């Protein structure tokens, strides 16, 4: 039993959940310890799950023993396993960083109390994300979506200032409306096809008006949560005003959760509609997101807003290749490109936010103009930001580069020159906004700045650097990712 893949499936959900419960029940000062133990168990579970997936192939777990369509099934394939691993790695790094961050900046009774909630909230978020990646039931996905939004909104609000509370409120409202759109889509799917399990749906769906309505509802709802242009308005204030570890979690992982559902929904449920204009519409919005987000990022005065607008832009890439997912020859490459992009962006963006947080602690303010000369004072954070920038701008060697290489390959093979052009232009614009930050870092510092020299703890800068290096190392991950995605690929490419 212990050696079966199916056994490890729910452990990845239950371990962080149990840890979250323990951090809630135990005295607050024990939270970091409990979190580390929970994280350790989850790591082992995800590791076993992935290893056993590679050896034994995809697996299902029938919760309650009923099995679909009456019960709820969990399933793991290559795509799900990659997302689980991503969450584990980025999440653990961010938790380590958060420990340093709170020790360094969590002063005052009120602030301490608020920051103490980070641990249970983060563990709940982790559990919810893992549940989301593994669930095969469209209604169960709704519940996991709500769990993710609640945790994300509460984490955003931890900063406690009026601006961030407003941002959190807007985020919560958009998230809830997005969930309700999604749930209405679930109602339409059940009304028309009478099942909730994705594999059952895959077998029964036909291109009917109800399927189109469900597709429209779910796509719009998940677009809101993923912050695809023009529904991105809530993202920059929320991601920029949250505390650094939270910004990293939101940008690296949370928006990817809703995108993951959207990707699966189109590949496995809405595929009969692939010949309609909808996938091209998503491509158009993706392209607009890249251009608009990059231009906004270039205009920003505040560092974290710049990084947040960069997220708006980078989300565009996830949608750029939607039509190609349904073209048999290009589908595997396009999918590999998208997934590589998710991984690389998560690493790079988390590193960018984390190093920005470390820099902000040193300079005490968030304006790009006050970054002068930080290379001398905070070299590790600066190098981390620079390395993350390399991946964001998709320069070789980096995960961003390999992802865009896949994307370009698929787009050109299909003759989509415009898409290819947007990919290239987007990279150039990213290079510009990264340079806007990096250039002043290497200038001579003002003497006045040197006087208030405080160093961010090594735990913070080193974790940021670690994630950035990981984003660079992902340049070797192209082929492994492709191979991983081929495990259970029938589950993904249900068009046969």
């Amino acid at each position: 039993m212990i050696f079966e893949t199916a056994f490890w499936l729910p452990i990845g959900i239950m371990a962080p959940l149990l840890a979250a419960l323990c951090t809630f029940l135990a005295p607050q000062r024990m939270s970091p310890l409990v979190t580390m133990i929970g994280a350790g168990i989850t790591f082992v579970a995800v590791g076993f799950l992935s290893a056993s997936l590679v050896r034994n192939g995809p697996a299902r777990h029938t919760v309650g023993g009923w099995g679909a369509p009456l019960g709820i099934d969990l399933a793991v394939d290559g795509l799900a396993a990659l997302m689980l691993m991503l969450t584990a790695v980025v999440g653990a790094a961010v938790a380590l960083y958060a420990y340093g961050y709170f020790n360094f900046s969590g002063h005052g009774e009120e602030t301490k109390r608020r920051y103490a909630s980070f641990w249970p909230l983060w563990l709940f978020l982790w559990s919810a994300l893992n549940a989301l990646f593994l669930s095969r039931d469209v209604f169960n996905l709704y519940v996991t979506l709500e769990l993710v939004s609640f945790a994300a909104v509460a984490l955003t609000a931890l900063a406690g200032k009026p601006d961030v509370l407003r941002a959190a409120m807007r985020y919560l409202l958009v998230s809830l409306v997005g969930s309700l759109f999604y749930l209405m889509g679930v109602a339409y799917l059940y009304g028309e096809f009478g099942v909730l399990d994705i594999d059952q749906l895959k077998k029964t769906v036909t291109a009917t008006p109800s399927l189109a309505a469900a597709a429209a509802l779910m796509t719009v709802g998940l677009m809101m949560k993923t912050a695809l242009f023009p529904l991105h308005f809530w993202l920059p204030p929320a991601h920029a005003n949250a505390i650094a570890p939270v910004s990293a979690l939101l940008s690296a992982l949370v928006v990817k959760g809703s995108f993951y559902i959207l990707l699966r929904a189109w590949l496995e449920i809405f595929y009969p509609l692939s010949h309609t204009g909808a996938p091209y519409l998503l491509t158009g919005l993706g392209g607009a997101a890249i251009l608009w987000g990059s231009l906004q990022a270039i205009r920003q005065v505040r560092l974290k807003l710049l990084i947040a607008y960069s997220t708006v832009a980078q989300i565009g890439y996830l949608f750029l290749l939607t039509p190609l997912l349904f073209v048999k020859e290009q589908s595997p490459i396009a999918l590999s490109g998208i997934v590589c992009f998710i991984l690389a962006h998560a690493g790079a963006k988390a590193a960018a936010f984390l190093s920005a947080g470390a820099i902000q602690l040193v300079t005490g303010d968030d304006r790009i103009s006050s970054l002068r000369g930080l290379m001398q004072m905070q070299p590790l954070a600066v190098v981390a930001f620079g390395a993350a920038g390399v991946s964001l701008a998709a320069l070789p060697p980096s995960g961003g580069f390999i992802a865009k290489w896949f994307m370009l390959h698929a787009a050109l093979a299909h003759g989509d020159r415009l898409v290819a052009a947007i990919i290239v232009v987007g990279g150039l614009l990213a290079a510009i906004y990264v340079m806007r930050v990096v250039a002043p870092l290497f200038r001579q510092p003002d003497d006045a700045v040197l006087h208030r020299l405080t160093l961010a703890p090594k735990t913070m800068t080193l974790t940021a650097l670690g994630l950035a290096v990981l984003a660079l190392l992902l340049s070797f991950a192209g082929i492994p990712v492709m191979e991983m995605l081929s495990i259970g690929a029938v589950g993904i490419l249900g068009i046969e």
Partner: protein
Amino acid sequence: MQDRDFNRALQADDDTRLTQSRLLVLALATALVAGLAAAAITFPDDFGRLAPLALDSLPRSGVLNPVTAVLLNYRGYDTLLEVVVLLLAIVGVWAIAPTPRIWFKTPDTPVLATFVRLLLPLMMVVAGYMLWLGADEPGGAFQGGAVLGGVGVLWAAAVVWLPRAGRPFWLRLLLGAGVAAFVIAAVGLLFLRGNLLQYPPEQAKTVILVIESAAMFSIGATLAMLFIGGYPRREEAK
């Protein structure tokens, strides 16, 4: 201008005039409704969906109320996550608000407190009955929990009991009991029977009732805490 804003907040008025931009939103919403309605009238009729399967499996579920069977057995995992949603909401509320939305003062006359003290055991019985009934008739943990939530609010309002500050352990235990019972049952059954929440058919009803009882107390406590908002506390003496 600030003054007007205060006034509006004070009178609790909202600006609901139909402006041009609102007309546009209304038009878009109307278009959405029209589209959805057009699709909705094509839902197939006379098509049982999962109903026959759910009703036929009832004898193996341990309960007679089909909704309870779905909530606690067929789709028990949904309910597990839902109890987590409740706990998460409290963690979120406590993270956001340092003080309760409502400050409770000890009332001048102890009549209300006495009344609430008498009410509590009665309401516990009502909630327990709803839970017990829920196995076979309409009712269940959520409905019972809602009753307990109401009692909890009354308790706080009458200041029968309120902690001086912070978050006492037993309150946290009460809030977390539902998740704890669910997760322990789920993981225990995973090790015993190989699947999360796979009840042994003979003891299904017992396990369901145990989980439901724990969940009911948590639901009640959570609803009361949501109402109070922030850590429950007495009004500080000035």
